[in-house]
Structures are given as C-alpha cells and as structure tokens.
C-alpha cells in the first residue's frame, strides 16, 4: 500500500489554482523532497495530506481520507509546520505532558532522552527559547512519536547552518527507518540533497519533475561545454543552458554520457541547478505563450 496516494488532486482559492490535478504516490521507507518556488502549491499539498484543507480529487493517506479522518490520521502522522508554531506561552514540561496526554504513540522517555542532549530546560517557556532550540524541542517531540509518516514543511527555516545540519543528522540517525516515510519541503535544496531518496519539483500547482535520487545520475547530465563545441552541443537540445565565468554549462536529460563527454567535462547536476533548469524552463514556456 502506498503511504500517500493522490489522483487528480485539485485545490482552488477563489480564482487562484493552488493545486492543478496532482498525481503522486509515496511508498513506505522513502524520504521525498517536495521542492518548488514560493506559491507553487507545496504547503497546500501538505495541508491537503494532513487534513487541514478540503480538496477536490482523490487522496488517501495511510488508507484514510485525511479531510474526514484527521484525528485518527494524526495518530500515525507527525508534522512540523515551520519554526513558529509551538505555542509561545507553554513550558517545555507542559508540552511534554500535553503530548503524552493526548498522543497514544508518544514515548515520553524517548523525548526526554532527546532533550537531554540539548541545553533546553524543562521549566523554560517556549518564548524564552532561541529559534534553534524551539526546533530542537519540536523535533524531540515528533521523533518520540511512533508515526509512520512524518511531514516537514520548511522545518529549518531561519536556522543557522549548524542547527540545520544537526536537524537532518538527527532525523536520519535517530528516527528514519525503512518502515517510515518522510515528506519534506524546503527552499534550501542543497542541504537535503544527500538526505532524500526521492525528488519532486512542483510549480504552479503541477508536478514538473519526479525522480528517485539514484536515477538522477543516469537521467541528467551537466556538461561544461568547450567553446568550439557549443553549436554541436546545442543541436542536441539541452534542457537548460547557463554561463558561468564565461563557460557554457548545459543540462541534458537522458543524454548519451559518452557522446556528451566529447563536448567537455560531464557531471551530475546538483538539485539546485536542476531546479533552476526545470522551473526556469517552465516559467519561460509559460511566458512565451502569454
């Protein structure tokens, strides 16, 4: 059974189409990165999956309809919205008490164990904690929940690089296993490159790219084209071309690596470059038809 399955998922806010018929399937044991520019529909998609917003089309999460069964769903789904949602008036100890009181799959000792590794005091109010500590606390709460699906929406927004690194390390070392699935959206694409098993780009409410990370290498190639081979390379129809300190860099999809190597140095593109190529192209086509 797929953990999340959507068919023709749509969502409209007035005249704005936030999700334009999305199909997706997320299996057990994956870490999927949902990447997109601002307003692409990432958060809307997550909200639909979490039962926070009604939608059109078909959507099941862990076999349930999230909109009608949010309460039951939340026993198996954990969720970090972004850094600011823990109630500021609450004490750390109260947060532990409350989650332990309402969540049947919360392991308080485990949460205490995670907190012991930090400098967070139980008696502190959340408003007294730094941004990084709030995220550490939220992560400690969430990782102590024996959930099957973890949804993270911009979890590291506004954190310094040290905390961001720790966040994903912690997630991988202490939480993730083959029986869970993690769905994460972020703008900081580079730092989750090594974390993901799957990659999905979303733009204007549509999925514009979907690939397992281990296929990235065979599917995309970036070539540092030598000036004298520019025309030849262009004739092969790169999906994107940019110049970096006077050198042309072309991105090819499903190109023959050996052939490409004759134009110049070939490497596997980073997510960020791929993102710019795919989303940029998407924007250009759209602009051209207007």
């Amino acid at each position, binding site marked *: 059974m797929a953990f999340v399955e959507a068919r023709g998922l749509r969502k409209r806010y007035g005249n704005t189409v936030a999700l334009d018929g999305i199909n997706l399937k997320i299996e057990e044991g994956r870490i999927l990165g949902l990447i997109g520019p601002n307003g692409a529909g990432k958060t809307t998609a997550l909200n639909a999956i979490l039962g926070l917003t009604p939608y059109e089309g078909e959507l099941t999460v862990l076999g349930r309809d999230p909109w009608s069964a949010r309460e039951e769903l939340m026993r198996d789904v954990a969720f970090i919205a972004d850094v600011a949602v823990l*109630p500021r008036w*609450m004490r750390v100890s*109260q947060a532990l008490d*409350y989650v332990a009181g309402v969540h049947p799959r919360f392991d308080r000792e485990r949460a205490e164990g995670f907190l012991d590794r930090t400098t967070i005091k139980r008696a502190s109010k959340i408003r007294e904690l730094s941004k990084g500590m709030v995220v550490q606390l939220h992560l400690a709460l969430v990782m102590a929940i024996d959930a099957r699906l973890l949804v993270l929406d911009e979890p590291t927004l506004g954190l310094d690089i040290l905390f961001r690194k720790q966040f994903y390390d912690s997630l991988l070392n*202490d939480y993730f296993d083959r029986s869970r699935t993690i769905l994460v959206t972020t703008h900081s694409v580079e730092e989750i490159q090594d974390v993901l098993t799957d990659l999905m780009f979303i733009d204007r409410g549509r999925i514009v790219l979907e690939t397992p990370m281990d296929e990235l290498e065979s599917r995309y190639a970036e070539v540092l084209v030598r000036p004298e081979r520019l025309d030849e390379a262009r004739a092969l129809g790169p999906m994107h071309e940019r110049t970096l300190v006077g050198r042309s860099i072309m991105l090819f999809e499903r190109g023959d690596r050996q052939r490409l190597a004759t134009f110049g140095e070939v490497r596997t593109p980073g997510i960020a470059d791929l993102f710019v190529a795919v989303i940029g192209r998407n924007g250009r086509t759209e602009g051209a038809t207007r």
Partner: protein
Amino acid sequence: MTTHPDVMPERLGSGEARPDATAATRPFYWSVRRELWENRSVYLAPLAVAAMALIGFAISTIGLAGRRREVLLLDAAEQRAQIGMPYDMVAMVLIVTGLIVAVFYSIDALHGERRDRSILFWKSLPVSDRTTVLSKAFIPLVVIPSIVFALIVTVHLLMLLWTGLVLVAHGMSPLSTLGAWNPLEQSAILLYGLVVLMLWHAPLYAWFLLVSGWARRAIVLWAVLPLVAFSALFRVAWGSTDVCALLLYRVVGGIEEAFAFTTGGTVTSVSQLTPGRFLATPGLWVGLVLAVVFLAAAIRVRRNREPI
C-alpha cells in the same frame, strides 16, 4: 488500520522492544488543562478579587462588635439584611468577575491559536476539532463557575471565622451571624444561581467562541456589532425595541425567572428559588438550542480555518 509491523529498528531503543500503541490518552482532560495553563487569568483574576474582598472585609470589621449589638435589637428581616450584606456583596463581586473573565476568555479562545499559528501544532496531534472546541466551551460553562463557587464559599467561611473571632474577643457569642445568615442555605442558593446563569448565558459564550473562531480581527466588534446593528435596524425600521429588550433579557432574564425576588429585590431563602418556572421558560430552551448550534458551527469553522 493495523499497528506497526515488526520492523522496529535496533538503533531506536537500546534493543528492547517498544510497547506498541501505548498509554490510554485523555484528550479532553488534557485539552482543558492546556486551557488553564494558557489562561491563568481564569483563576488568578477571581483569586485576586477574592483577596481584595477579604482585606476590605477585615477593615470593615473595625467596630463590628458595637454595630452588631445594635443590629441584634432589630427585627429578623433587618438583621438578615444588615448581617448578610457583606456576604452578598462578596458573592456578587466574584460572580461578576467570573462573568467578565468568561467573556474575555471566550472571545479569545479560538482566535489566539490562529493568531500565533499554534493551531498548526494542535492540529498535528490526534485531538479532534470537537474535543478542542468543547474543551474551550467547558471553561466558561463549567470551570469558571466552579472556581467562582469554591472561592465564594471559601471567602464566606473565612469571613464567618473572622467575624466569630472578633465577636468572641469582645465577649459576644460568635453564633449571632449564623442565626441571621445560614452558610449552608446561602451556598445552596449560590450554587443554584450559578447553574442558572451558566445555562442562561450558554448561547452567549457559544456565540463568542464561534466569532473568535471565525473572525480574522476585531473579534469584540464582530461579537457585539451584529447584535447592536440588529436592534438599531428594528428600532429605526419598525420603531420597535424588541431586539434590544431581547438582548437585555438574554443577559439578566434568567435570574428573574429563577428567583422569586422580595420587594426589596433580594434573595435570602431557598424558598425563593423557582426552578420550575425557570425550566418552563421558553427563553432557556431557545438559548440552549442556539448554544448547540453555535458550538456545532464553531467546530466546523475550526476545521476549516487556517492560521491568520
């Protein structure tokens, strides 16, 4: 939904199997506690007022013995009025404090969590919108009246004790207060009165909760303005003050139905309670139906609303 399969990773716990789907949870209980953590004014404000009232009363007992000698020469009704007055005042002040706290609480209850976005945290836990809204309604309907009742009874007992000590110190019997003012009977009247108020005001609190879950800003305005606008409309269009009177009735009407007041407008004995008349008042049942409708709407609204 089946519970987790066996594949629990070794690196999680130190090898030992974790208990599957664990402790029994009590979402409603914890939701109410959560409200009290967040809104400490729910008990701190009445406590502060009670403390002030006690201090005021202690000051007023200077010269008590002399006054009491004079009061005891009067007839029984006068004695009751004179001796019972400070007790009734304290009760009144604390009841009004409770009402104010309850109104302010209800107006903010579903708004605050959207304003600070913490609604996303609450909704990430397996607590239904119904549990949440009902736990918030529980505060003005049950928790605050209970706090007010307990506080008034406590303050009354302390006042009795203090009066007794003062009287004994002046060589008088401490029992003269009890002859005019029976604490058991008064507590029964108080409890009845608080239940009456709670049932009668239930639609108001439910309405405030609904507005606080629905409005983006200016909740007080949204809570009050439609009512004022309605009564203005009726007054201008039909020269009728019906709606205005109806609103006033919703605030104080229950008390008028529930007690047979003396000509002096007081209630001193349980024989003045008229629960039958109160229960037969259509306004009570209309109000309770409205309360249920508003709460159901508030639950729906919370389900749909996103952070502000």
